């Protein structure tokens, strides 16, 4: 009798648990593969996705010669990270993966991401390595014709992908998502451990 009365409660608790796991941003758990890559870090050393396990990881594809959208996106996340508690902040990192490896050498990327704080890391690689990754996450990038100074614009995905500490896909942030929604989703993934 007791057992029979408890079941609806258990079911309700389970349902509530599921509801809690819904993301306010875009859920990518079922549609994106786990984080895998073989790139080069800011010290010119090989960087593999396994090296970045253990923390909630945000991934953005951009380039350092981008004056507007890229620094604003990284700055937005720096400000969101500031809303986290110190303990939460220790469990989160953001990777800027360059789609402009010719200009984004490891040194350039290291200096650039360093400006946003210790949670930010820049990764580069050769074109094949970067293409393997952009294909994996079904994103595009393209180069415009260079100007007379040799400067060129790179069009690139504006999305930020979030993975849990095991590198499993969780959610995707686009510009219109509010900082509060991003913060809530970020906390949920950090809590997963």
């Amino acid at each position: 009798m007791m057992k029979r009365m408890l079941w609806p409660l258990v079911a309700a608790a389970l349902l509530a648990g599921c509801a809690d796991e819904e993301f306010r941003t875009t859920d990518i758990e079922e549609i994106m593969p786990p984080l895998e890559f073989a790139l080069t870090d800011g010290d010119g050393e090989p960087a593999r996705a396994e090296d970045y396990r253990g923390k909630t990881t945000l991934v953005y594809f951009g380039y350092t010669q981008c004056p507007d959208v890229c620094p604003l996106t990284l700055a937005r996340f720096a400000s969101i990270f500031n809303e986290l508690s110190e303990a939460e902040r220790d469990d989160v990192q953001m990777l800027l993966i360059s789609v402009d490896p010719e200009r984004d050498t490891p040194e350039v990327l290291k200096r650039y991401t360093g400006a946003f704080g210790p949670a930010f890391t820049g990764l580069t690689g050769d074109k094949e390595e970067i293409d393997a990754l952009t294909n994996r996450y079904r994103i595009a990038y393209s180069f415009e014709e260079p100007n007379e100074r040799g400067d060129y614009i790179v069009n690139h995905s504006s999305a930020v992908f979030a993975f849990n500490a095991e590198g499993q896909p969780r959610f995707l942030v686009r510009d219109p998502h509010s900082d509060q929604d991003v913060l809530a989703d970020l906390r949920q993934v950090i809590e997963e451990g």
Partner: protein
Amino acid sequence: MRKAFDYARRTALAGAFVLAGAAGAQASDLRVANARLSLLPGATPGAGYFDIVNEGASPITLTGAESEAFEAVEMHESSEHDGMAHMHGVDSIEIGPGETFSFAPRGHHLMFMGRLAPLAEGDEVEVTLDIDGEPLPVTFEVVSPVSL
């Protein structure tokens, strides 16, 4: 050197036009506010943001900008379509009488390329906007993108 000469010549020419009364809008009809230059360490380009108000009775056209602190300054616009961030050059912007036009994050911005001297947060940079061939000097404050 050539750049400095061009700048001096253009300034002199524009001055001559003002004296001759040939320039359309007067600089006194224009107000620029909130001029910030978002910059990161290293050789990466900066972004200039500001609001320009045309308080005059006739439209004005902004056709470019330059600064002695940078090799080149271009007007750009960022946009987003289908999840892709794009950027393209803008040749001119017309601002009607009584209108305000904003160069703002994720929209129109000045792109500052090839910095010629180190700049730090809090520094001031002189930028000359080109309005109908007339120079309009504006002081930009160097800020971190984190502050925007």
